């Protein structure tokens, strides 16, 4: 029983890292209608920015806040200077551009900070507390709580605020949004900026566990995309739930299903996606798009 609970909490903790990245992807998709494959790389860059701010003597919390703010502007600038050129064209072109961006940012990180692993301190103490006979790390709990709070804020942003409504309107139909007086260009920048800031949170949460490397988020991105597909592109709560399910299943399968083990556990989320997409193509929580003419 103890092992089970420990696996469960650890799974939820890794799941919440995927969730943070997945939320950023959903945010960009909600705001611009596009999937950003560079979201993970941008989160790594944010991690390095926080690392450098630590290096110049800022306290940890200051460095994190600084990195989140800087990341907002980096995201907004990337939209304005790069993505804007491809928004009007074929969506597939834009997707390929974000893949290029992934490679570019990874290269930039390696150039400035090298491929060596850099240690990054955690916001939470490295202690464990007993929960139902299992020892659970405070880091895992802290990570889970931070992500749940962010998920709540995002849901509130989209359904409860005028900015959220405007971001969604712009992603659905830019012309209608503009005809209603919405400054489309500025809203697109805000959408990318918010996603980038959210990615920064994911970056600083995962860096203490994995140590900072340019490719730190590569695997997490794959899982985050799995969560996005599973949870539905339109639902913050859905992707967080899906990310949690993926994290837990992956951990449980590795331990309890002998032929999977730690080598094959990466296949678990994909098996899950496969089954879900056959049964519910819109994702577990996504809305079905109905087009009537």
């Amino acid at each position, binding site marked *: 029983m103890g092992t089970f609970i420990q696996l469960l909490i650890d799974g939820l903790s890794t799941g919440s890292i995927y969730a943070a990245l997945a939320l950023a992807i959903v945010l960009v998709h909600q705001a611009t209608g596009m999937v950003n494959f560079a979201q993970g790389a941008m989160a790594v860059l944010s991690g390095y920015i926080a690392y450098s701010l630590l290096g110049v003597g800022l306290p940890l919390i200051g460095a994190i806040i600084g990195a989140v703010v800087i990341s907002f502007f980096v995201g907004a600038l990337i939209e304005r200077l790069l993505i804007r050129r491809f928004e009007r064209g074929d969506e597939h072109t834009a997707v390929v551009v974000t893949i290029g961006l992934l490679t570019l940012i990874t290269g930039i990180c390696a150039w400035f900070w090298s491929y060596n692993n850099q240690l990054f301190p955690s916001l939470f103490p490295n202690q464990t507390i007993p929960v139902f006979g299992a020892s659970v790390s405070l880091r895992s709990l802290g990570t889970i709580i931070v992500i749940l709070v962010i998920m709540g804020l995002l849901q509130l942003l989209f359904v409860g605020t005028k900015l959220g409504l405007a971001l969604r309107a712009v992603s659905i139909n830019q012309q209608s949004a503009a005809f*209603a007086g919405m400054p489309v260009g500025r809203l697109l920048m805000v959408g990318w900026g918010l996603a980038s800031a959210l990615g920064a949170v994911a970056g600083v949460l995962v860096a203490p566990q994995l140590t900072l490397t340019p490719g730190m988020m590569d695997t997490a991105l794959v899982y985050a995309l799995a969560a996005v597909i599973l949870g539905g592109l339109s639902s913050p709560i859905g992707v967080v739930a899906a990310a949690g399910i993926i994290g837990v299943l992956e951990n449980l399968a590795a331990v309890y299903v002998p032929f999977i083990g730690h080598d094959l556990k990466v296949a678990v989320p994909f098996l899950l996606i496969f089954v879900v997409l056959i049964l519910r193509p819109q994702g577990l929580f996504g809305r079905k798009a109905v087009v009537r003419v």
Partner: protein
Amino acid sequence: MPLLELEGVTASYDSVQVLDGVSLSVPERGAVGVLGANGAGKTTTLRAITGVVRAGGSIRFDGRDIRGLRPDQVAALGIAHVPEGRGTLGDLSVRDNLRVGAYLGKDKAGIARDIDYCLELFPQLRERVKSNGSALSGGEQQMLAVARAFMAKPRLLLLDEASLGLAPSTAKNVYQAIRRLREESGIAMLVVEQNANLAFSLVDSATVLETGRSVLTGPTEELRAMDEIRRAYLGG
């Protein structure tokens, strides 16, 4: 001084000249039709006014030159555009579509009142207020597009082919509601319409376009009586 005044407006897509001297004016609280065959430049005229296409000549709104402004800046001046194709925000509910229309509004109580008014004007929308825009029928989407434009409390409404693709009885309903909207709100209107009978039921005067040029302007009764207009645009 007219509310909207176009003089010698030109516009082109790539290198094809679509507008080649469009002149018309809409008085405060007035309603003016734009008639013409397919490809005469009716839709492009509206798109030039709201800054969707780059235009030459002079476009003045309330005495101010608005040429070169972005669509959202034009909207902020008080011009609402109901585009051809309706521009429905499919993933948003009917109510959220209306809230999008009210983006520039600041007064919450006023917005709630306006939503109520729209739902009274178009009772079909009241039944679907929680449905996604994409689940509505064509007629309902057209009503939603007009309602969304009204939510911005504009001084001038640009209406592009509101009858396109609708059953004749539905089109008539839509125009009836727009006529009521005009009477009760006093919003000035510039109406592009392929179906001249529907247009004449709403407007006081009209301009006829031929290959991107204004060729004739007059009050509704005069145009209705003219043989050539009838032959060309009224199908008789």
